[in-house]
Protein backbone atom coordinates (compact mmCIF):
# COMPACT_ATOMS: atom_id res chain seq x y z
CA UNK A 1 0.00 0.00 0.00
CA UNK A 2 1.58 3.26 -1.18
CA UNK A 3 0.27 5.35 1.75
CA UNK A 4 1.91 3.04 4.24
CA UNK A 5 5.40 4.38 3.59
CA UNK A 6 7.23 6.77 5.86
CA UNK A 7 8.22 8.95 2.85
CA UNK A 8 4.56 9.33 1.80
CA UNK A 9 3.38 9.98 5.35
CA UNK A 10 6.11 12.54 6.03
CA UNK A 11 5.74 14.23 2.62
CA UNK A 12 1.94 14.20 2.89
CA UNK A 13 2.07 15.82 6.32
CA UNK A 14 4.43 18.59 5.16
CA UNK A 15 2.30 19.29 2.06
CA UNK A 16 -0.86 19.30 4.21
CA UNK A 17 0.75 21.84 6.55
CA UNK A 18 1.80 23.90 3.55
CA UNK A 19 -1.76 23.87 2.12
CA UNK A 20 -3.19 24.75 5.55
CA UNK A 21 -1.06 27.92 5.41
CA UNK A 22 -1.25 28.61 1.65
CA UNK A 23 -5.04 28.47 1.16
CA UNK A 24 -6.00 30.88 3.99
CA UNK A 25 -3.17 33.22 2.89
CA UNK A 26 -4.56 33.11 -0.68
CA UNK A 27 -8.00 34.02 0.65
CA UNK A 28 -6.58 36.85 2.76
CA UNK A 29 -4.61 38.27 -0.20
CA UNK A 30 -7.78 38.14 -2.35
CA UNK A 31 -9.71 40.03 0.36
CA UNK A 32 -6.93 42.62 0.64
CA UNK A 33 -6.97 43.27 -3.14
CA UNK A 34 -10.79 43.34 -3.37
CA UNK A 35 -11.03 45.65 -0.36
CA UNK A 36 -8.39 47.93 -1.78
CA UNK A 37 -10.16 48.30 -5.18
CA UNK A 38 -13.66 48.69 -3.69
CA UNK A 39 -12.39 51.25 -1.19
CA UNK A 40 -10.88 53.28 -4.00
CA UNK A 41 -14.21 53.38 -5.89
CA UNK A 42 -16.22 53.91 -2.71
CA UNK A 43 -14.16 56.90 -1.58
CA UNK A 44 -14.35 58.39 -5.10
CA UNK A 45 -18.17 57.98 -5.14
CA UNK A 46 -18.54 59.37 -1.63
CA UNK A 47 -16.38 62.35 -2.46
CA UNK A 48 -18.37 63.13 -5.62
CA UNK A 49 -21.78 62.64 -4.05
CA UNK A 50 -20.74 64.76 -1.06
CA UNK A 51 -19.56 67.54 -3.39
CA UNK A 52 -22.84 67.54 -5.38
CA UNK A 53 -24.93 67.32 -2.22
CA UNK A 54 -23.03 70.23 -0.74
CA UNK A 55 -23.48 72.25 -3.94
CA UNK A 56 -27.23 71.58 -3.92
CA UNK A 57 -27.52 72.45 -0.23
CA UNK A 58 -25.62 75.71 -0.39
CA UNK A 59 -26.72 77.14 -3.77
CA UNK A 60 -29.99 78.98 -4.03
CA UNK A 61 -29.93 79.12 -7.85
CA UNK A 62 -33.00 77.19 -9.12
CA UNK A 63 -31.05 76.00 -12.20
CA UNK A 64 -28.41 74.28 -10.15
CA UNK A 65 -30.07 70.89 -10.63
CA UNK A 66 -29.91 71.21 -14.42
CA UNK A 67 -26.31 72.43 -14.21
CA UNK A 68 -25.23 69.45 -12.12
CA UNK A 69 -27.05 67.11 -14.50
CA UNK A 70 -25.21 68.66 -17.47
CA UNK A 71 -21.82 68.57 -15.72
CA UNK A 72 -22.27 64.95 -14.76
CA UNK A 73 -23.29 64.02 -18.29
CA UNK A 74 -20.33 65.90 -19.60
CA UNK A 75 -17.97 64.15 -17.19
CA UNK A 76 -19.67 60.78 -17.85
CA UNK A 77 -20.53 60.44 -14.18
CA UNK A 78 -23.57 58.31 -13.46
CA UNK A 79 -25.74 59.85 -10.79
CA UNK A 80 -29.34 60.50 -9.83
CA UNK A 81 -30.82 62.98 -7.40
CA UNK A 82 -33.93 62.39 -5.31
CA UNK A 83 -36.14 64.77 -3.35
CA UNK A 84 -37.11 64.20 0.28
CA UNK A 85 -39.83 61.72 -0.74
CA UNK A 86 -37.37 59.53 -2.66
CA UNK A 87 -38.58 60.54 -6.08
CA UNK A 88 -35.88 60.80 -8.77
CA UNK A 89 -35.80 64.43 -9.87
CA UNK A 90 -32.61 64.44 -11.95
CA UNK A 91 -30.42 61.76 -13.51
CA UNK A 92 -27.72 61.11 -16.08
CA UNK A 93 -27.56 58.20 -18.55
CA UNK A 94 -28.62 55.26 -16.39
CA UNK A 95 -30.60 52.67 -18.36
CA UNK A 96 -32.89 51.19 -15.69
CA UNK A 97 -33.62 54.29 -13.62
CA UNK A 98 -36.30 56.69 -14.91
CA UNK A 99 -37.14 60.14 -13.76
CA UNK A 100 -40.08 60.17 -11.37
CA UNK A 101 -39.58 56.69 -9.97
CA UNK A 102 -39.00 56.22 -6.24
CA UNK A 103 -36.04 54.74 -4.44
CA UNK A 104 -36.80 52.25 -1.66
CA UNK A 105 -38.33 53.82 1.42
CA UNK A 106 -35.73 52.51 3.90
CA UNK A 107 -32.98 54.33 1.95
CA UNK A 108 -34.91 57.61 2.22
CA UNK A 109 -35.39 57.03 5.93
CA UNK A 110 -31.63 56.48 6.29
CA UNK A 111 -30.92 59.65 4.31
CA UNK A 112 -33.36 61.60 6.53
CA UNK A 113 -31.37 60.38 9.52
CA UNK A 114 -28.30 61.95 7.90
CA UNK A 115 -26.70 58.55 7.11
CA UNK A 116 -24.87 57.77 3.90
CA UNK A 117 -26.16 55.01 1.65
CA UNK A 118 -23.99 52.38 0.07
CA UNK A 119 -25.19 49.45 -2.00
CA UNK A 120 -24.40 47.33 -5.02
CA UNK A 121 -26.94 47.72 -7.79
CA UNK A 122 -27.29 45.42 -10.82
CA UNK A 123 -29.15 46.63 -13.90
CA UNK A 124 -31.26 44.50 -16.23
CA UNK A 125 -28.18 43.53 -18.32
CA UNK A 126 -26.44 42.26 -15.21
CA UNK A 127 -23.93 45.05 -14.98
CA UNK A 128 -23.01 45.82 -11.36
CA UNK A 129 -22.67 49.30 -9.90
CA UNK A 130 -21.46 50.54 -6.56
CA UNK A 131 -23.95 53.21 -5.41
CA UNK A 132 -23.04 55.85 -2.82
CA UNK A 133 -25.77 58.15 -1.60
CA UNK A 134 -25.27 61.35 0.42
CA UNK A 135 -28.12 63.36 1.97
CA UNK A 136 -28.63 67.01 0.92
CA UNK A 137 -28.66 68.63 4.33
CA UNK A 138 -29.73 72.24 4.79
CA UNK A 139 -30.94 74.28 7.77
CA UNK A 140 -34.48 73.25 6.91
CA UNK A 141 -33.56 69.56 7.11
CA UNK A 142 -32.86 66.85 4.54
CA UNK A 143 -34.00 67.95 1.07
CA UNK A 144 -33.17 64.70 -0.67
CA UNK A 145 -30.09 62.76 -1.74
CA UNK A 146 -27.40 62.54 -4.40
CA UNK A 147 -26.60 58.99 -5.57
CA UNK A 148 -23.35 58.48 -7.52
CA UNK A 149 -22.91 55.16 -9.33
CA UNK A 150 -19.66 53.54 -10.50
CA UNK A 151 -19.49 50.46 -12.64
CA UNK A 152 -17.79 47.50 -10.96
CA UNK A 153 -17.10 45.80 -14.29
CA UNK A 154 -13.52 47.12 -14.51
CA UNK A 155 -12.78 46.27 -10.89
CA UNK A 156 -14.24 42.79 -11.28
CA UNK A 157 -12.09 42.24 -14.38
CA UNK A 158 -8.97 43.47 -12.60
CA UNK A 159 -9.75 41.36 -9.56
CA UNK A 160 -10.34 38.30 -11.72
CA UNK A 161 -6.94 38.89 -13.33
CA UNK A 162 -5.31 39.26 -9.92
CA UNK A 163 -7.06 36.09 -8.73
CA UNK A 164 -5.79 34.18 -11.76
CA UNK A 165 -2.27 35.39 -11.09
CA UNK A 166 -2.57 34.52 -7.41
CA UNK A 167 -3.81 31.06 -8.38
CA UNK A 168 -0.86 30.63 -10.76
CA UNK A 169 1.57 31.81 -8.09
CA UNK A 170 -0.13 29.44 -5.61
CA UNK A 171 0.26 26.51 -8.00
CA UNK A 172 3.92 27.51 -8.48
CA UNK A 173 4.42 27.67 -4.71
CA UNK A 174 2.72 24.28 -4.36
CA UNK A 175 5.08 22.68 -6.88
CA UNK A 176 8.06 24.38 -5.29
CA UNK A 177 6.95 23.05 -1.90
CA UNK A 178 6.37 19.62 -3.44
CA UNK A 179 9.95 19.54 -4.76
CA UNK A 180 11.46 20.67 -1.45
CA UNK A 181 9.19 18.28 0.50
CA UNK A 182 10.27 15.40 -1.73
CA UNK A 183 13.94 16.06 -0.91
CA UNK A 184 13.21 16.60 2.79
CA UNK A 185 11.03 13.53 3.26
CA UNK A 186 13.51 11.36 1.37
CA UNK A 187 16.49 12.69 3.32
CA UNK A 188 14.71 12.39 6.68
CA UNK A 189 13.30 8.93 6.09
CA UNK A 190 16.37 7.42 4.37
CA UNK A 191 18.20 6.63 7.65
CA UNK A 192 15.03 5.04 9.08
CA UNK A 193 14.53 2.92 5.96
CA UNK A 194 18.21 1.97 6.04
CA UNK A 195 17.89 0.91 9.69
CA UNK A 196 14.67 -0.99 9.04
CA UNK A 197 16.36 -2.95 6.23
CA UNK A 198 19.42 -3.60 8.41
CA UNK A 199 17.25 -4.77 11.34
CA UNK A 200 15.36 -7.15 9.02
CA UNK A 201 18.65 -8.58 7.70
CA UNK A 202 19.91 -9.00 11.26
CA UNK A 203 16.63 -10.70 12.23
CA UNK A 204 17.12 -13.10 9.30
CA UNK A 205 20.55 -14.03 10.66
CA UNK A 206 22.87 -11.82 8.59
CA UNK A 207 24.69 -10.52 11.66
CA UNK A 208 27.50 -8.94 9.64
CA UNK A 209 25.06 -6.20 8.58
CA UNK A 210 25.90 -2.71 9.83
CA UNK A 211 24.13 0.64 9.46
CA UNK A 212 26.38 3.31 7.96
CA UNK A 213 25.29 6.60 9.51
CA UNK A 214 27.54 9.49 10.48
CA UNK A 215 25.01 11.69 12.30
CA UNK A 216 25.35 12.19 16.05
CA UNK A 217 21.70 12.89 16.86
CA UNK A 218 19.06 10.42 18.10
CA UNK A 219 18.93 8.73 14.67
CA UNK A 220 22.71 8.22 14.76
CA UNK A 221 22.41 6.88 18.30
CA UNK A 222 19.71 4.42 17.18
CA UNK A 223 21.94 3.27 14.30
CA UNK A 224 24.80 2.78 16.74
CA UNK A 225 22.49 0.79 19.04
CA UNK A 226 21.49 -1.47 16.12
CA UNK A 227 25.16 -1.96 15.20
CA UNK A 228 26.05 -2.75 18.82
CA UNK A 229 23.15 -5.19 19.02
CA UNK A 230 24.26 -6.92 15.81
CA UNK A 231 27.84 -7.06 17.11
CA UNK A 232 26.71 -8.55 20.45
CA UNK A 233 24.48 -11.07 18.70
CA UNK A 234 27.30 -12.02 16.37
CA UNK A 235 29.68 -12.42 19.31
CA UNK A 236 27.08 -14.42 21.23
CA UNK A 237 26.42 -16.68 18.24
CA UNK A 238 30.15 -17.20 17.57
CA UNK A 239 30.94 -17.92 21.22
CA UNK A 240 27.94 -20.28 21.43
CA UNK A 241 29.15 -22.15 18.35
CA UNK A 242 32.66 -22.24 19.73
CA UNK A 243 31.38 -23.33 23.14
CA UNK A 244 29.46 -26.28 21.70
CA UNK A 245 32.42 -27.23 19.51
CA UNK A 246 34.73 -27.05 22.53
CA UNK A 247 32.38 -28.89 24.85
CA UNK A 248 31.96 -31.79 22.45
CA UNK A 249 35.71 -31.93 21.89
CA UNK A 250 36.57 -31.70 25.59
CA UNK A 251 34.03 -34.36 26.55
CA UNK A 252 34.95 -36.67 23.72
CA UNK A 253 38.68 -36.73 24.55
CA UNK A 254 38.48 -38.29 28.06
CA UNK A 255 35.66 -40.60 26.94
CA UNK A 256 37.86 -41.82 24.07
CA UNK A 257 40.68 -42.48 26.54
CA UNK A 258 38.38 -44.34 28.94
CA UNK A 259 36.80 -46.29 26.08
CA UNK A 260 40.17 -47.18 24.50
CA UNK A 261 41.95 -48.27 27.66
CA UNK A 262 38.88 -50.12 28.94
CA UNK A 263 38.82 -52.05 25.65
CA UNK A 264 42.54 -52.83 26.02
CA UNK A 265 41.84 -54.18 29.50
CA UNK A 266 38.79 -56.20 28.41
CA UNK A 267 40.71 -57.73 25.52
CA UNK A 268 43.66 -58.31 27.86
CA UNK A 269 46.04 -56.58 25.46
CA UNK A 270 48.46 -55.60 28.22
CA UNK A 271 51.77 -57.41 28.78
CA UNK A 272 52.25 -57.02 32.48
CA UNK A 273 50.38 -56.24 35.67
CA UNK A 274 52.33 -52.97 35.82
CA UNK A 275 51.01 -51.97 32.40
CA UNK A 276 47.48 -52.92 33.49
CA UNK A 277 47.85 -50.71 36.59
CA UNK A 278 49.05 -47.86 34.37
CA UNK A 279 45.97 -48.18 32.10
CA UNK A 280 43.66 -48.29 35.10
CA UNK A 281 45.35 -45.15 36.46
CA UNK A 282 44.72 -43.38 33.11
CA UNK A 283 41.04 -44.42 33.15
CA UNK A 284 40.75 -43.17 36.74
CA UNK A 285 42.40 -39.81 35.92
CA UNK A 286 40.24 -39.31 32.86
CA UNK A 287 37.06 -40.14 34.75
CA UNK A 288 38.03 -37.60 37.44
CA UNK A 289 38.70 -35.04 34.72
CA UNK A 290 35.33 -35.80 33.09
CA UNK A 291 33.54 -35.52 36.40
CA UNK A 292 35.26 -32.20 37.17
CA UNK A 293 34.37 -30.86 33.75
CA UNK A 294 30.72 -31.82 34.16
CA UNK A 295 30.75 -30.17 37.61
CA UNK A 296 32.26 -26.98 36.13
CA UNK A 297 29.75 -26.95 33.29
CA UNK A 298 26.95 -27.41 35.78
CA UNK A 299 28.24 -24.44 37.81
CA UNK A 300 28.55 -22.27 34.69
CA UNK A 301 25.06 -23.13 33.47
CA UNK A 302 23.67 -22.25 36.90
CA UNK A 303 25.51 -18.90 36.82
CA UNK A 304 24.26 -18.24 33.26
CA UNK A 305 20.67 -18.96 34.19
CA UNK A 306 20.98 -16.90 37.36
CA UNK A 307 20.02 -19.95 39.41
CA UNK A 308 23.12 -19.93 41.58
CA UNK A 309 22.27 -19.03 45.17
CA UNK A 310 24.82 -17.12 47.16
CA UNK A 311 24.80 -17.50 50.94
CA UNK A 312 26.13 -14.10 51.83
CA UNK A 313 27.59 -13.63 55.30
CA UNK A 314 30.46 -11.76 56.97
CA UNK A 315 33.49 -13.85 56.12
CA UNK A 316 37.08 -13.59 57.33
CA UNK A 317 38.72 -13.85 53.93
CA UNK A 318 42.10 -14.73 55.50
CA UNK A 319 40.57 -17.96 56.78
CA UNK A 320 39.13 -18.72 53.37
CA UNK A 321 42.51 -18.21 51.68
CA UNK A 322 44.28 -20.32 54.32
CA UNK A 323 41.72 -23.09 53.75
CA UNK A 324 42.28 -22.99 49.99
CA UNK A 325 46.06 -23.08 50.50
CA UNK A 326 45.70 -26.14 52.75
CA UNK A 327 43.62 -27.94 50.11
CA UNK A 328 46.09 -27.27 47.29
CA UNK A 329 49.30 -27.60 49.30
CA UNK A 330 49.76 -31.30 48.51
CA UNK A 331 49.42 -30.77 44.79
CA UNK A 332 51.95 -27.91 44.95
CA UNK A 333 54.38 -30.01 46.96
CA UNK A 334 54.19 -32.79 44.36
CA UNK A 335 55.47 -30.30 41.79
CA UNK A 336 58.05 -28.86 44.18
CA UNK A 337 56.19 -25.54 44.49
CA UNK A 338 55.81 -23.44 47.60
CA UNK A 339 52.68 -21.39 48.37
CA UNK A 340 53.32 -18.25 50.36
CA UNK A 341 50.77 -15.82 51.75
CA UNK A 342 51.18 -12.22 52.82
CA UNK A 343 48.19 -10.75 54.66
CA UNK A 344 47.83 -7.22 56.00
CA UNK A 345 46.97 -7.02 59.70
CA UNK A 346 43.39 -6.47 60.84
CA UNK A 347 41.76 -6.93 57.46
CA UNK A 348 38.03 -6.23 57.55
CA UNK A 349 35.43 -8.97 57.08
CA UNK A 350 33.98 -9.33 53.62
CA UNK A 351 30.27 -9.77 52.91
CA UNK A 352 30.37 -12.75 50.55
CA UNK A 353 29.65 -16.46 50.10
CA UNK A 354 32.45 -18.32 51.93
CA UNK A 355 32.12 -21.55 49.91
CA UNK A 356 32.16 -19.72 46.59
CA UNK A 357 35.17 -17.68 47.69
CA UNK A 358 36.96 -20.95 48.55
CA UNK A 359 36.07 -22.23 45.05
CA UNK A 360 37.54 -19.03 43.54
CA UNK A 361 40.85 -19.36 45.39
CA UNK A 362 41.13 -23.13 44.80
CA UNK A 363 40.59 -22.53 41.07
CA UNK A 364 43.20 -19.74 40.99
CA UNK A 365 45.73 -21.78 42.98
CA UNK A 366 45.04 -24.90 40.87
CA UNK A 367 45.65 -22.83 37.80
CA UNK A 368 48.89 -21.39 39.20
CA UNK A 369 50.15 -24.87 40.22
CA UNK A 370 49.18 -26.39 36.86
CA UNK A 371 51.17 -23.89 34.80
CA UNK A 372 54.18 -23.51 37.15
CA UNK A 373 57.09 -25.92 37.30
CA UNK A 374 59.28 -24.17 39.82
CA UNK A 375 59.37 -21.14 42.06
CA UNK A 376 56.78 -19.82 44.47
CA UNK A 377 53.11 -19.05 44.31
CA UNK A 378 52.29 -15.95 46.35
CA UNK A 379 48.96 -14.80 47.71
CA UNK A 380 48.79 -11.30 49.13
CA UNK A 381 45.87 -9.44 50.68
CA UNK A 382 45.54 -5.79 51.66
CA UNK A 383 43.00 -3.03 52.10
CA UNK A 384 43.08 -0.02 49.77
CA UNK A 385 40.54 2.80 49.47
CA UNK A 386 37.65 0.91 51.07
CA UNK A 387 38.41 -2.07 48.87
CA UNK A 388 39.84 -5.47 49.70
CA UNK A 389 42.51 -6.53 47.23
CA UNK A 390 43.78 -10.06 46.77
CA UNK A 391 46.65 -10.90 44.45
CA UNK A 392 47.68 -14.36 43.23
CA UNK A 393 51.11 -14.47 41.61
CA UNK A 394 52.74 -17.46 39.96
CA UNK A 395 55.97 -18.10 38.09
CA UNK A 396 54.38 -20.23 35.39
CA UNK A 397 54.42 -20.14 31.60
CA UNK A 398 52.65 -16.77 31.49
CA UNK A 399 50.12 -15.50 28.96
CA UNK A 400 50.99 -13.70 25.70
CA UNK A 401 49.73 -10.09 25.81
CA UNK A 402 47.37 -10.47 22.85
CA UNK A 403 45.69 -13.44 24.54
CA UNK A 404 45.05 -11.71 27.87
CA UNK A 405 41.66 -10.53 26.58
CA UNK A 406 40.42 -14.09 26.12
CA UNK A 407 41.85 -15.68 29.24
CA UNK A 408 38.47 -15.71 30.99
CA UNK A 409 36.66 -17.22 27.98
CA UNK A 410 35.30 -20.72 28.37
CA UNK A 411 37.62 -23.51 27.17
CA UNK A 412 40.32 -20.98 26.39
CA UNK A 413 43.82 -22.30 26.93
CA UNK A 414 47.14 -20.55 26.41
CA UNK A 415 49.03 -23.65 25.33
CA UNK A 416 46.39 -25.41 23.28
CA UNK A 417 48.74 -28.08 22.00
CA UNK A 418 49.83 -29.00 25.54
CA UNK A 419 46.42 -28.79 27.19
CA UNK A 420 46.40 -32.50 28.06
CA UNK A 421 49.82 -32.19 29.61
CA UNK A 422 48.70 -29.33 31.85
CA UNK A 423 45.28 -30.87 32.49
CA UNK A 424 42.35 -28.73 33.66
CA UNK A 425 39.01 -28.19 32.00
CA UNK A 426 39.52 -24.73 30.55
CA UNK A 427 36.53 -23.55 32.56
CA UNK A 428 38.20 -22.67 35.87
CA UNK A 429 38.99 -19.01 35.15
CA UNK A 430 35.59 -18.47 33.49
CA UNK A 431 33.93 -19.70 36.70
CA UNK A 432 36.25 -17.53 38.82
CA UNK A 433 35.36 -14.40 36.84
CA UNK A 434 31.61 -15.10 37.00
CA UNK A 435 31.72 -15.83 40.74
CA UNK A 436 33.82 -12.72 41.50
CA UNK A 437 31.46 -10.49 39.52
CA UNK A 438 28.41 -12.11 41.11
CA UNK A 439 29.76 -11.01 44.47
CA UNK A 440 30.34 -7.43 43.30
CA UNK A 441 34.08 -7.79 42.70
CA UNK A 442 36.37 -7.45 39.71
CA UNK A 443 39.29 -9.51 38.47
CA UNK A 444 42.25 -8.32 36.45
CA UNK A 445 45.16 -10.19 35.00
CA UNK A 446 48.63 -9.10 34.01
CA UNK A 447 51.31 -11.39 32.71
CA UNK A 448 54.77 -11.62 31.22
CA UNK A 449 54.96 -14.47 28.77
CA UNK A 450 57.44 -17.08 30.01
CA UNK A 451 57.77 -15.49 33.45
CA UNK A 452 54.41 -15.78 35.15
CA UNK A 453 51.00 -14.24 35.71
CA UNK A 454 49.38 -12.07 38.34
CA UNK A 455 45.64 -12.14 39.08
CA UNK A 456 44.25 -9.28 41.15
CA UNK A 457 40.80 -9.51 42.73
CA UNK A 458 39.09 -6.40 44.11
CA UNK A 459 36.04 -6.48 46.38
CA UNK A 460 34.28 -3.38 47.69
CA UNK A 461 34.06 -3.20 51.48
CA UNK A 462 30.59 -2.21 52.60
CA UNK A 463 29.96 0.27 55.44
CA UNK A 464 29.37 -2.53 57.96
CA UNK A 465 32.75 -4.20 57.42
CA UNK A 466 34.59 -4.79 60.70
CA UNK A 467 37.61 -6.86 61.54
CA UNK A 468 37.22 -10.32 62.93
CA UNK A 469 38.56 -9.12 66.32
CA UNK A 470 35.96 -6.30 66.37
CA UNK A 471 33.22 -8.85 65.82
CA UNK A 472 34.42 -10.77 68.90
Amino acid at each position, binding site marked *: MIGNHIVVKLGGTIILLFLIVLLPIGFVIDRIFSGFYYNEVRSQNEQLSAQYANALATTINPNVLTMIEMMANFSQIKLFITDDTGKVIAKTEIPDITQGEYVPEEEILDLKDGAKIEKVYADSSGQRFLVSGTPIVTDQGVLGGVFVMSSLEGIDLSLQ*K*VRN*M*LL*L*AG*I*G*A*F*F*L*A*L*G*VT*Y*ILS*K*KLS*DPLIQMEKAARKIAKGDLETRVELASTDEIGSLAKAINDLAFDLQRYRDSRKEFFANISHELRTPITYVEGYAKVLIDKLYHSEEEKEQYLEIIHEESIRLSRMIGDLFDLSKIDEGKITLHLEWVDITEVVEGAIQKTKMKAKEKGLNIQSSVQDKLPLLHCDGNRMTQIFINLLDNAIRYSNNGDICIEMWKEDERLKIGVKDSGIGIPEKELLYIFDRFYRVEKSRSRQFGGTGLGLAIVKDLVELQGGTIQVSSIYGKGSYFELTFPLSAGSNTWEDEI
Partner: protein
Amino acid sequence: MKWGDWLIVSLFLIIGLSCMTMSATWMMGTNAISSYLHNLFHICLWGGVPITVAAVIYVMIRKWKNERNG
Protein backbone atom coordinates in the same frame (compact mmCIF):
# COMPACT_ATOMS: atom_id res chain seq x y z
CA MET B 1 18.38 9.68 -3.53
CA LYS B 2 18.58 8.17 -7.02
CA TRP B 3 18.87 10.14 -10.29
CA GLY B 4 15.17 9.49 -10.93
CA ASP B 5 14.27 11.20 -7.67
CA TRP B 6 16.42 14.21 -8.55
CA LEU B 7 14.69 14.36 -11.96
CA ILE B 8 11.25 14.48 -10.32
CA VAL B 9 12.44 17.12 -7.84
CA SER B 10 13.99 19.24 -10.62
CA LEU B 11 10.73 19.01 -12.59
CA PHE B 12 8.69 20.17 -9.59
CA LEU B 13 11.09 23.04 -8.89
CA ILE B 14 11.15 24.17 -12.54
CA ILE B 15 7.33 24.07 -12.79
CA GLY B 16 7.02 25.92 -9.48
CA LEU B 17 9.52 28.64 -10.36
CA SER B 18 8.03 29.06 -13.87
CA CYS B 19 4.50 29.47 -12.53
CA MET B 20 5.59 32.01 -9.95
CA THR B 21 7.74 33.97 -12.41
CA MET B 22 4.94 33.99 -15.01
CA SER B 23 2.51 35.24 -12.42
CA ALA B 24 4.86 38.01 -11.31
CA THR B 25 5.75 39.04 -14.90
CA TRP B 26 2.24 38.96 -16.37
CA MET B 27 0.82 41.52 -13.95
CA MET B 28 3.68 43.88 -14.78
CA GLY B 29 2.32 43.97 -18.34
CA THR B 30 5.59 43.32 -20.10
CA ASN B 31 6.52 40.31 -22.17
CA ALA B 32 10.26 40.95 -22.38
CA ILE B 33 12.48 37.99 -21.52
CA SER B 34 14.69 40.32 -19.44
CA SER B 35 11.75 41.10 -17.20
CA TYR B 36 11.00 37.37 -16.85
CA LEU B 37 14.61 36.61 -15.93
CA HIS B 38 14.73 39.56 -13.55
CA ASN B 39 11.67 38.24 -11.70
CA LEU B 40 13.04 34.70 -11.73
CA PHE B 41 16.27 35.96 -10.17
CA HIS B 42 14.36 37.81 -7.47
CA ILE B 43 12.16 34.79 -6.68
CA CYS B 44 15.29 32.62 -6.35
CA LEU B 45 16.87 35.33 -4.20
CA TRP B 46 13.88 35.38 -1.83
CA GLY B 47 13.85 31.58 -1.75
CA GLY B 48 17.57 31.60 -1.01
CA VAL B 49 17.19 33.87 2.03
CA PRO B 50 15.83 31.19 4.44
CA ILE B 51 18.31 28.64 3.07
CA THR B 52 21.21 31.07 3.67
CA VAL B 53 19.93 31.93 7.17
CA ALA B 54 19.56 28.20 8.02
CA ALA B 55 23.06 27.46 6.66
CA VAL B 56 24.61 30.30 8.69
CA ILE B 57 22.83 29.13 11.89
CA TYR B 58 23.93 25.52 11.22
CA VAL B 59 27.58 26.54 10.70
CA MET B 60 27.49 28.70 13.85
CA ILE B 61 26.04 25.86 15.96
CA ARG B 62 28.64 23.40 14.63
CA LYS B 63 31.44 25.85 15.35
CA TRP B 64 30.11 26.47 18.85
CA LYS B 65 29.82 22.72 19.50
CA ASN B 66 33.35 22.10 18.23
CA GLU B 67 34.72 24.86 20.45
CA ARG B 68 32.83 23.48 23.47
CA ASN B 69 34.13 19.97 22.84
CA GLY B 70 37.63 21.39 22.61
